[in-house]
């Protein structure tokens, strides 16, 4: 695993998120659930707690957009780059953007599974950079894993715990 220079992380373990808009690829309720599940991946192994808000500015602002979408990193159309997220900090930090030109799915292997993409991006939003371990969630290349049986790989667990410590049981 690797972290960003300076080990960027959130100053406390209560992190807020807000879903700013939705993809037409999936029902809204399904997007809500997938986002929650993808955050839970990290909450299960660390002291982090995620609190959803529906207005105002959250630590992690989540949105779907295509091409130029308001930051300096335009998306590139179908395939190629699927999403990106910014390391923890004020403002754009933590924000997570999905490329609306992709087809996102939640229960099938067709298109790109939103849970898989989101769980990876939230790793960045929490302070993890890319891993060179091809089995890690934080490896930069997309691969499908069944969300219903997903277990966070050891490399990623060590990474998030290096920033926030282990979960209090």
């Amino acid at each position: 695993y690797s972290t960003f220079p300076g080990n960027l992380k959130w100053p406390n373990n209560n992190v807020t998120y807000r879903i700013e808009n939705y993809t037409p690829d999936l029902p809204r309720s399904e997007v809500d659930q997938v986002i929650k599940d993808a955050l839970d991946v990290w909450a299960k192994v660390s002291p982090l707690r995620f609190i959803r808000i529906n207005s105002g500015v959250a630590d992690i602002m989540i949105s779907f957009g295509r091409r130029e979408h308001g930051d300096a990193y335009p998306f590139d159309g179908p395939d190629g780059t699927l999403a990106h997220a910014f390391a923890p900090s004020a403002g754009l930090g933590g924000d997570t953007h999905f490329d609306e030109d992709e087809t996102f799915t939640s229960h099938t292997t067709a298109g790109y599974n939103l849970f898989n993409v989101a769980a990876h991006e939230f790793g960045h939003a929490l302070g993890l950079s890319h891993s060179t371990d091809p089995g890690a969630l934080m490896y930069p290349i997309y691969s499908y894993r069944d969300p219903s049986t997903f277990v966070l790989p050891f490399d990623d667990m060590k990474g998030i715990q290096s920033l926030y410590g282990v979960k209090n049981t």
Partner: protein
Amino acid sequence: APLPPGSNASFAEDYLEKFFDLKNTNTSSSNNRRVSPFNLKLREMQQFFRLEETGVLDEKTLEVMNKPRCGIPDMAE
């Protein structure tokens, strides 16, 4: 010289600029006989993805570059 747009080499150059911090080298001298920054960055990329480190743009390297991926750079400056 600048790489022809649309070529594999041009695509690879874009990829390395985006994800491996390759600086735009179009202004470098054509008399420069050192190993090119492109080949050094290609080697770095091949090391990251555990490919054979040749510094040469081969089919396997292009295949990895064409895979769907996250937009965050793999190497910090």
